[in-house]
């Protein structure tokens, strides 16, 4: 029954019904039919508005109003008042949009959501993050002295020049590191070695010896944790795909003349 889930199939089905009905009405000009369908729809609307089913008297009044509206409505259409009216035009386009989306939301889509999640894992992943310590200095000639002190086992925390920078940063992404140290610094991240002082590395502030404490690889959030978000993204994606496909399909049946 997969075919029944296809929106395009639905549209062609709706289209055929429309054309058939249209044909029927075209052959019966000036005839307003009040059938069970109309009555039950009016009754349902009444129930929504008042909470009760319409009494025969109320229903009769609803039908009379409906006939009056229908006659005016058809007359307005006959006079072409719907043409070149941007509000009618927008409203109809909007309704068509609703129709496309509604058809799409039918059925169980767990499998499709799962597939969407797998194709788009990048959207649900945390980037690579770095935990590191740094010794900051501005005078390049201090390098040998610093390296010697580190080799002697001096406390590295005492070696930095004063600055607003922290001595250690935990679990920072490349984006976050760019914000703190500037773009050029980030280019050196790949050369860091865990547990070892590397440098000097240049930043917007000056020079740094940097020790990587931990590299946290990219992590994908399990679907179970973010099911609602993925489902919403999936639906949005499907709406875009279906709307575009529907448009392209319709476009094929029109000749576009640019004058």
């Amino acid at each position: 029954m997969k075919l029944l889930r296809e929106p395009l199939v639905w549209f062609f089905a709706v289209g055929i019904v429309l054309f058939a009905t249209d044909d029927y009405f075209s052959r019966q000009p000036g005839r307003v039919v009040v059938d069970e369908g109309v009555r039950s729809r009016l009754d349902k609307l009444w129930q929504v508005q008042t909470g009760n089913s319409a009494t025969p008297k109320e229903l009769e009044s609803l039908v009379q109003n409906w006939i009056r509206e229908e006659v005016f409505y058809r007359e307005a259409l006959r006079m072409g008042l719907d043409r070149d009216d941007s509000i009618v035009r927008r409203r109809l386009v909007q309704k068509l949009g609703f129709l496309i989306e509604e058809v799409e939301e039918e059925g169980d889509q767990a499998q499709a959501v799962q597939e969407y999640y797998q194709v788009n894992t990048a959207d649900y992943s945390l980037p690579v993050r770095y935990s590191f310590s740094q010794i900051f200095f501005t005078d390049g000639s201090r390098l040998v002295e610093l390296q010697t002190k580190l080799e002697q086992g001096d406390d590295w925390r005492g070696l930095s020049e004063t600055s607003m920078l922290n001595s250690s940063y935990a679990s920072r992404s490349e984006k976050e590191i760019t914000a703190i140290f500037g773009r050029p610094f980030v280019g050196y991240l790949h050369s860091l070695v865990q547990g070892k002082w590397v440098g000097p590395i240049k930043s917007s502030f000056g020079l740094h010896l940097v020790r990587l404490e931990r590299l946290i690889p990219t992590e994908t959030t399990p679907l179970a944790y973010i099911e609602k978000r993925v489902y919403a993204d999936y639906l949005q994606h499907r709406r875009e795909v279906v709307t575009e496909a529907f448009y392209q399909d319709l476009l094929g049946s029109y000749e576009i003349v640019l004058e």
Partner: protein
Amino acid sequence: MMRSAVMVAVLSFCLQACSEKEDVGDGKKLADTVVEPQVSTPDFNAGRNAYFGDLHVHTMYSFDAFIFGTTASPDDAYGFAKGGVVTHPGGFDMQLDVPLDFYAVTDHAFYLGSLRAMADPSTDLSKHEIAEGMSELSDAANRYGHFQKVIAFLRTERSSELLDQQVYKEAWDDIVAAANRHNDPGKFTALIGYEYTASGDQMENLHRNVIFRGDTAPELPFSRIDSSNPERLWEWMDEQREKGLEALAIPHNSNGSNGEMFKLLDFTGNRLNSAYADQRMRNEPLVEITQVKGTSDTHPALSPTDEWADFEIMPYRIATKLDSTVPGSYVREALMNGIELMQKKGFNPFKFGAIGSSDTHNGTYAGDEDNYWSKVGLLDDEPVERGSIPLPEPRKGGELYADSYYRTWSAAGLAGVWADENTRGSIYDAFRRKETFATSGPRIRVRFFAGYGLPKIETKDLISRAYSIGVPMGGDLIADKDREPEFLVWASRDANSAPLQRLQIIKASVRDGKSVEHVFDVACSGGGEVDKATHRCPDNGAKVNLEDCTISDDVGSAELRTIWRDPDYDPSEHALYYMRVLENPICRWSTWDAIRSGVSPREDLHATIQERAWSSPIWISPPEQ
């Protein structure tokens, strides 16, 4: 003909079924409440961290933003602040290189959501005469015309016709729910807020943003429909506070107030008194001193001895081309009047801390000079519209540029706070302490303390000792006739903007009954010495190449800091001090526009600017007699 009739009938029946389902399934309408954690978040720091944010953001619910073409919702806006992408109505994508730490959507409360409803043909509001054409807004001129038409109508006695309580309530509930949904203690603070958009009869700007501390908001905001008198807003806020709803109001664009924001009379024209000062300070501890619609720190006419006072001056009343008179419209002058009143009468109604923000009407914090994506949607998203490049054809009078005030606008404004951690409580309490600073866009961090016997600048635990000995920005110090205060002044650059050029102290004190100001350079880039007579740094020679906007990469400092003593200190004077730090010059956004378009920068605009940060003041008062 008949075919369309059937089509409409069938579709409308289906639509009915659809919309019934949608109402049931719309989870957004459920109010999420977020409870602040009782334990600290991982970044908790008793020495406090700097956090950056924007407290002035409009979305599609603002009457004007909607006309400007903005479709970004509060949800989109908070998502953007966290690093997400929002598409500008002009068709390009907007995203921040570095996400912000806190954000407040502050839509205009009056007619909140109304314009959006007017453009929707299915609503009652769309039938109003003023709604005509609203569902088919087109180019910038058409939108600007509608904007002016709506503003004019809103100023008539009939304005309440555009108020639909249901539309208003739904929009407000959506804003509150979006903030609560996005708030993520320890990572991102989403504050609930709105703009109170009052103005005087002559378009004098009295706008304030109201920011709430918690996750619960009043049923509806207090708007200019309730009263155009800001004192009524403060009364309402006092009432809310008694009910447990803590909020503060932040005035903005005093530059466009035509002297009304900080005048020395109350709203009805009476002299100010201590009750007025108490109520104002209880509700308005902060002021927004810089944003896209110009900087309100000071004006060259008020501060003739401040060579950097001519910075992003926006000379008009808001949304008009009427001049805004200078006295009463700028923050420094108000701070000075405040200490003068304190000395003469014992109360200070202008004891403000400082923040910056953007006032974006796109839902998205405006970019910086080299990444300016405009503020008012389709009205100024093209360089030619904002007057930075010539029109294809000169105007009738021969003028080369578009007739708009956007040329006087600035690229950005940013709010900084020093807070223990990134939670609503911690950030909000920093606002209350005025431990805040403002920047013109870059993420420059500034530390500022005053105290007696502060440690040397190179001391390892400098900050924790400064907190224990002295007071941070926003604080008060009592003068001591036997000791002189010291000031710890420290700035750290934005790693991706220009290096710092000079560190300054702006001092105001009441001398012989009159407040006077002094600007002191206190640290110079590249190890330069401040001249003791002029209190100025030597020129560091930083240059901007106006061919391609490259800057000197060998001058300027990453950090500037010092312990400073006031050479003119007098313990008997009421005084205030705030710090300002200037970057080396860079191209202004209008110069970037011109260069990218292959034309010369406009001659009557500054080609370069010096981005900057301002701290909140520290007040020093003589000991009580």
